[in-house]
């Protein structure tokens, strides 16, 4: 049981980790820089190529990766509370898939980047609407049905993506594939994603204790004075907005929303007042580190960061899935 003081200490420690991961990301690459150079470039004193690389290449990418990691982790944590299922995740539920279809359709049409982003945004909202709408059915959301619906929507999106890829002209394929796998290199302006992340945190923190109760069951929450339908609507809209913002910024990056809340929950417990901000910070740090690794490990080739996160996420998901029945009995 965290106290307010312990929660602040954990958040502070994670903020330090986040800052450290971002400094590392700014320093490492084909042009290796010392901490001094990085700080000089950031403060605006630096001159020449080093400062240029840090400010106009690595900084947007690092900040964007951090924002996306934070957005996905926060969205995942919220969906898990909403569905009372630790397996829920924007990627698993097919919401990222919907965004991919929207974005690729825009690319296929040869539209400008802004329309690709708009397509991703629209696609993720439509997929969310579809998943939650279909699984709505009776008065209470049946969670198994929702996960299954998500899986089916994800499969359908996968097929649509395959269709688009197979009819796309050669010269567009590479960009599409990179978008699909999730790539922080395409981030131009990280500010919208960062703003939405801050907004998401500010909006969720005041209702964090209510979310604690919602995670324990709707009847329980209602009997303790929570307006459950309203809270659920807010969480639903917020989590799809956060997902859409992340996918629009860096393409479809899987499993951050699943892995990070789970790891944070293991470390600090399931109190949303601590879990939500901690997951956002940890998710951001993880994606920054993964992206740094992705662009340095087989340099000069840059791996799409989504490949790394999926390689990490699949075993964790399977582990969770296998553990589930034992915990219930």
């Amino acid at each position, binding site marked *: *049981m965290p*106290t*307010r003081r312990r929660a602040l200490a954990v958040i502070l420690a994670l903020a330090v980790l986040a800052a450290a991961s971002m400094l590392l990301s700014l320093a490492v690459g084909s042009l290796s820089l010392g901490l001094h150079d990085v700080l000089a470039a950031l403060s605006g004193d630096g001159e020449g190529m080093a400062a240029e690389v840090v400010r106009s290449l690595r900084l947007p990418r690092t900040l964007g990766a951090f924002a996306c990691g934070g957005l996905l982790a926060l969205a995942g944590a919220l969906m898990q509370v909403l569905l*009372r*299922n*630790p397996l829920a995740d924007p990627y698993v539920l097919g919401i990222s898939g919907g965004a991919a279809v929207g974005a690729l359709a825009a690319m296929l049409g040869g539209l400008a980047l802004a329309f690709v982003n708009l397509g991703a945004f629209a696609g993720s909202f439509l997929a969310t609407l579809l998943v939650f709408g279909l699984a709505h059915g009776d008065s209470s959301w049946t969670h198994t049905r929702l996960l299954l619906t998500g899986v089916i929507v994800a499969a359908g999106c996968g097929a649509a993506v395959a269709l688009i890829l197979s009819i796309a002209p050669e010269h567009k394929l590479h960009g599409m594939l990179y978008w699909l796998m999730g790539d922080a290199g395409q981030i131009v302006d990280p500010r919208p994603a960062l703003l939405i992340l801050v907004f998401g945190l500010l909006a969720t923190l*005041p209702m964090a*204790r*209510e979310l*604690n*109760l919602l*995670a*324990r*069951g709707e*009847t*329980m929450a*209602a*009997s*303790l*004075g*929570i*307006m459950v339908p309203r809270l659920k609507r807010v969480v639903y809209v917020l989590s799809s907005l956060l997902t859409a913002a992340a996918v629009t910024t860096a393409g479809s990056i899987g499993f951050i929303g699943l892995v990070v809340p789970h790891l944070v*929950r293991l470390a600090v*417990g*399931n*109190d949303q*007042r601590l879990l939500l901000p901690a997951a956002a910070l940890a998710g951001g740090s993880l994606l920054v580190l993964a992206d740094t690794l992705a662009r340095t490990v087989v340099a000069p080739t840059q791996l799409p960061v989504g490949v790394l996160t999926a390689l990490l996420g699949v075993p964790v998901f399977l582990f969770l899935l296998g553990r589930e029945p034992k*915990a*219930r009995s």
Partner: protein
Amino acid sequence: MSAPLLEARTLDVAIGGRTLCRGLDWQVMPGESWAILGRNGAGKSTLLATLAGLRRPGSGAVLIDGRSVAAAHPRELARVRGYLPQQSHDPFASTVLETVLVGRHPHLGRWDWESAVDRRIAEAALGEVGLAGFAQRDVQTLSGGERQRLGIAALLTQEPRLFLLDEPLAHLDLNHQVAQMEVLARRAAHGAGVVAVLHDPGFAARWCGFALLLFGDGEWIAGPVADTVTAENLSRLYNHPLRRLAGAPYPVFIPE
């Protein structure tokens, strides 16, 4: 005479087009303990959820502490009435102490964290249900009976004046059944109202002053146990002949 804690006015409770309880006019005064008896599917749980304000009645009204539950703010309601659902399911790991402390939610402001006082209330509740020393255990490792007592502890931590309990004795051993009824009786002795769905008419007669019998076809009987929990009524209620054992200090009913 003080005002009733809970009042049903010409209340109809229906589910799936079937009226389970028709025209219920009924009051629970402070200090009273009521048992709700009836067959499986007679509408005991549905009625209890309706009384708690968690379900809309077919018609009629429910008043808690003189205010209509339909109009009351859920948070205000939660400071007066506590509700123990039939089942609780824990998809996430959580300590026993955290689980008990959810009962403090209606008493805390939006930005408040649980204080030392809240913690003391929670620990006292754990002690009362025989779970002292379990505070740091994970709820997912508890047995069915321990989980049930944890739910009752959370309800005690909520400190309501009206207790609505759906099968509080489910999964419990005999000693714990008696202990939980004693805990509730103590609350009633201090002026709380207690309404519990029970399966054992003997327990109802022993621990509750009053009983509400639901026949499942809309008919109901309410009143002091001496008048309501009789062999004749119970035989009709359970659709099986029952006989009251003569000479026992408390009413004991055995199936013929």
